[in-house]
């Protein structure tokens, strides 16, 4: 007895038979495939928002970067330091140094109102005052148009994302900050990171404009190595002069993006889950009617000696194939429609706008296709069992 081989060839022939009959019930098949494609598009599309946001936040972090805030502060916005404190922080052990001094940039972080291009309404755009070391602390920063601002001069450079999302941020145009007007000297990129949503200027210039005296809000440092973090942190937290919170850049940005990614992922899964239930019903409907239309054929095959497990497996295969087609279609659609779709949203921790692009990652596509496969399997299982249980004699009598 050729056992397994025979079993496989039975499955192959029933499946082939099923697939060949698709054109006869194309309405139902198309409805199922599109239904599943819809689920996958929505799932992948919604999750790509969260993935893009998270990516914008995490590419900003370098493993040897750390950020120091006042203890109790959950974002730069609400943190604050005097000059003495930022000096102590910069000279701490673990901070990398060059001939010009420690790689530490004491920074100010405020927001200013600039209209969004898409809606024309005011949005809160982050404006960061930095020290010269900032460019070494964040070494992925590149000027792509214009030039760097001159230190000590009332000039700014604008991140690529901000220039795209908000009106009036081209090289040569001027931004209005209270009673001041600052020309835009250049546009910079930062590997798609969160800095691209910001406007940068000299910290001293910003201190003057905002009457901040000689105070700062955060210190960004580059460490000797990622491993030096603990030493750096311990020396700061054990220093009685300071009352600070020390976090790795990666942790800081993960914390900043948590609220919004949680919101989007929770809602995204919930919506996709509900849609998936709907799609399962659609798939069940299609497969049940497929079975009903083939009652006689299946009974004939069973009478010829085809096994009931072969019938079950081949019907599930058929449903799985349809679902996978839907899944791939949906994933492709989501990729076409959403990948690199530029938008901006509010970072709820600092009320400031973050420009980012939706990211349809391979991982999301795989997830979408796995969902479609599950829908297909569930949608195929019950009809397949019904087909296998058909009483052969009664079904043949229907001839």
């Amino acid at each position, binding site marked *: 007895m050729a056992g397994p081989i025979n079993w496989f060839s039975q499955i192959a022939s029933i499946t082939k038979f099923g697939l060949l009959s698709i054109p006869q019930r194309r309405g139902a098949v198309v409805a199922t495939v599109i239904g599943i494609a819809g689920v996958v598009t929505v799932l992948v599309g919604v999750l790509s928002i969260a993935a893009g946001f998270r990516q914008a936040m995490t590419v900003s972090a370098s493993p040897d970067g750390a950020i120091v805030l006042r203890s109790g*502060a*959950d974002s730069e916005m*609400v943190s604050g330091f005097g000059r003495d404190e930022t000096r102590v922080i910069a000279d701490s052990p673990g901070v990398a140094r060059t001939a010009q001094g420690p790689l530490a940039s004491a920074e100010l972080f405020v927001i200013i*109102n600039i209209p969004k291009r898409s809606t024309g309404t005011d949005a809160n755009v982050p404006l960061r005052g930095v020290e010269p070391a900032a460019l070494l602390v964040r070494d992925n920063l590149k000027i792509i148009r214009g030039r760097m601002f001159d230190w000590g001069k009332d000039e700014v450079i604008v991140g690529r994302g901000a220039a795209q999302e908000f009106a009036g941020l081209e090289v040569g145009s001027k931004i209005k900050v*209270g009673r001041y007007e600052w020309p835009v000297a250049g546009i910079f990129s930062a590997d798609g990171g969160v800095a691209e949503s910001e406007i940068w200027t000299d910290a001293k210039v910003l201190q003057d404009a905002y009457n901040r005296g000689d105070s700062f809000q955060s210190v960004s440092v580059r460490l000797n190595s990622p491993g030096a973090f603990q030493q750096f942190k311990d020396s700061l937290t054990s220093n009685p002069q300071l009352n600070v919170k020390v976090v790795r850049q990666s942790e800081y940005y993960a914390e900043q993006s948590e609220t919004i990614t949680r919101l989007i992922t929770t809602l995204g899964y919930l919506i996709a889950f*509900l849609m998936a239930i709907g799609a399962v019903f659609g798939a069940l409907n299609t497969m049940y009617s497929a079975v009903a239309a083939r009652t006689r054929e299946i009974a004939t095959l069973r009478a010829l000696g085809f096994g009931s497990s072969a019938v079950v497996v081949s019907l599930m295969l058929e449903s799985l194939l349809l679902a996978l087609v839907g899944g791939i279609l949906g994933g492709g659609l989501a990729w076409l429609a959403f990948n690199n779709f530029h938008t901006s949203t509010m970072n709820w921790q600092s009320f400031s706008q973050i420009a980012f692009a939706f990211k349809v990652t391979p991982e999301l596509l795989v997830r979408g296709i796995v969902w479609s496969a599950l829908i297909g399997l569930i949608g195929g299982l019950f009809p397949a069992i019904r087909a296998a249980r058909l009483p052969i004699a009664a079904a043949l009598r229907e001839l």
Partner: protein
Amino acid sequence: MKFFHLIWCNLKRKKLRTSLTLLSIVVAFVLFGFLSAIQQALVGGVEMAGADRLIVRHKVSIIQLLPVSYEARMDRIAGVDFATHQTWFGGIYQDPKNFFMQNPVEPEKFLQMHPEIILPPEQEKAWLATRTGAIVGRRTANRFHWKIGDQVPIQSTIWTRPDGSHTWEFDIVGIYDGKDKGTDTTPMFFRYDYFDEARQAWGKGQVGWYTIRIKDPSQAAEVAKRVDAEFENSPAETKTEPEGAFIQGWAKAIGNIVLIVAAILGAVFFTILLVTGNTMAQAVRERTGELGVLKAIGFTNGRIVGLVLAESCLLTVLGGTLGLGLAWLVISRGDPTSGLLPMFFFPTRDLLIGLGLSVVLGLVTGIFPALQAMRLRVADALRRM
């Protein structure tokens, strides 16, 4: 109505197919309800805005503070009834995930400004008598099981007390309700005098933003202009806009939610349309012969179309009602994101839109099979029996 029995029996004929189709319609309408609530939570605040209220904030950005002395100056501007202020406290209760808003306000003026906040008179009296007193909305009180008389510690991310600590203790003296279900009852409000005295030197005498009640809502634009003119060329210039526009600005800052929600709903309904349409088409195809008989015994074309449409509408309206009811049940259990969407509820308007949509869905999915049935020629149909 006399054909109801016939329609009902037709639906019951393929129980499995009908129930599966019904279930997918139910799911679509559960989603519809759910997305309406999400959209309401994110952008619905605009409807709750008072037409007679203006918001005044620092011109450069909301994070910059305004002097508390502006209040008296605003009160004198023509068209202004009165002004009062609030400040962002940015507090955390136990865990940053437990987000809700807490603002210091001037109790009497605040309650006068916001009639949508319903606080029992004896609790109002207690608030005015207790310096460290705070009132909290019903939702937040239920969420953390706070009762009147509780003392709650809040960590402020912004404001330090003179001893350098960030922990502020408040006595809950009142729990307020909203006038209607769109009122946000998550924030906590406490007294500005306590706050201003206890905060460290930085920011003393400075407040976040002002709310102005104007005498005549139709004069909003003119009054707003006068307010901004009053503070022009001062160190803290202002930007004044109607409360609705202010809230809308926040909603737009989050992104184009309406568009995203519409896109998702579009995808959902398109899918359901296909599924239901397919069911109806199958049903009509199977019944070709019977339809022929009905026509032969004198059913007019209109009646045949009516029968098929009634069947598809019955299916979708049934599914729609069940789905909307289910959505209502799920939504009334509250915000699924624990705190991010304070105004999460099912607006009555969307409930009605949903019901209307279920009828439209029935008509659209039924119309092609119905026309097909209408065009049947009696002789052809009977021959197929």
